């Protein structure tokens, strides 16, 4: 296991070097590629700070929604939830449907916060027409 630098520190300085030294010198398609690499590294950095907490919360919420014991694997838990939604186990207008939407929004917001925080902020500042 690396301790000095640890993986976080190494990722952090790699990203900083890319953004401050390399990206300003790139142009055209190379600049776009550089920006995509920087974005991918920033997502990895943000996700690495979570330490699986979000997944634990998600699987616990799904277990409560389905009234079943928690499943350790988030993909399996999500699959069970997806099947229950398709089977119409959350009738519109019921408290269960409200809990489901709150869960979906919470999980989606948590994941989107990692990959595109700016989108969420801009989305919340929106102005809509009344046509």
């Amino acid at each position, binding site marked *: 296991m690396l301790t000095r630098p640890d993986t976080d520190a190494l990722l952090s300085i790699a990203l900083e070097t890319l953004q401050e030294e390399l990206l300003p010198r790139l142009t055209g398609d190379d600049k776009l590629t550089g920006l995509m690499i920087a974005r991918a590294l920033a997502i990895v950095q943000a996700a690495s700070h979570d330490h699986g907490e979000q997944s634990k919360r998600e699987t616990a919420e799904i277990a409560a929604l389905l009234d079943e014991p928690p499943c350790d694997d988030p993909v399996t838990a999500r699959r069970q939830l997806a*099947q229950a*939604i398709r089977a119409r186990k959350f009738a*519109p207008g019921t408290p269960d449907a409200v809990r489901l*939407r709150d*869960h*979906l929004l919470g999980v989606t917001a948590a994941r*989107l916060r990692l990959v595109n925080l700016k*989108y969420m902020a801009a989305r919340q500042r*929106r102005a809509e*027409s009344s046509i």
Partner: protein
Amino acid sequence: MSLDKYRTALADFISAETGGTAAVTMGGKLGGGAIQDNWAIDVEIAGGPQAGRHELVLRSDAVSRIAESRSRAEEVALLQTALDAGMTVPQPFALEPTGKVIGRPFSLIRRLPGVAEPRQVLHQLADLAEMHEAEHGDDKTSEAPGDVLARRLGEELAKLHRVTLEAVPGGLAFLEPAGPDLVARRVADYRRHLDQLPEPQPVLEWALNWIEDHAPAIERITLCHRDFRLGNLLIDDGRLTGVLDFEFAGWSDPDEDLGWLCARCWRFGAFAQEAGGIGSRAAFYDGYRNVAGREIDDRRIRFWEIFGTLRWAMIALDQGERHFSGGERSLNLALTTLRALECDYDLLHDIEAFDKPAPEKKHRHKSAGDEA
């Protein structure tokens, strides 16, 4: 892939097609093709009915395709139909459907002026808006450049929507028929498609249920572009110079095209400009109404916006699978998958807004996802 090594083969093909002697100059690869590759090529033809210089675009399939996209031959037939309907589209020049010339089927179409890249178009419009404001100030009688373009886009779509199955009998036979069960069939297709994806998508399942329950009655079926938005529109100095990329076109409810342009995912961050990030929804609707001669039901358009958001999520997931399956390794495709999360977020908010009476939209419901 470089086309340079095919220069002679391309010249021979064009010579045979035109009955002249063609010399080909290869230009660079053009942007904007996630599903197909586009190259600029210039052709000088000596002799024959098409003698002279021709500025063209060569369009070939990318290494891996996605489920919804059409072949080059089908796209050329659609382009010709749009041209006949009076749309501003590039004229098809030649088609090579066998893949024997450059290793993949390709089409050649006329190259038109303008830029398609959304950020460049938005910068262009921002510059024009600044000049317009300096010139006209608060004069409300002078329409802003973004609204002028939005109005023009409405007119253009209305021309395409004049094409009905009756108007092209026997033509476009490769297009799947569509009828009153249009939405139900799409929902069933998407559910089958979700079953094939490696990861479950609870939000999309939730949205599909809502779409199934709120599908409007299908009142008319016309030819639709089904990808009419910035990125597929050539714009020069704020003017539309060409509608591109007919590879998703098909029979559908024309309101689907209007909803697609207005969907938040195609506003490129310019959320307040509800017609594709370009101009106002009112100007876009007006332009459409003036040419189509029919009223627009805003609620139907908003339904199709939600449907479009779901569809873009499905396409984004598909794009990612092109990378994850090993068919086409690409950081861009891998990152495109994450766009589906933005769609999830929009679906959760937009469906709630649709379900609420309009006056309540001003009072935002605070919910779990908005806390942090």
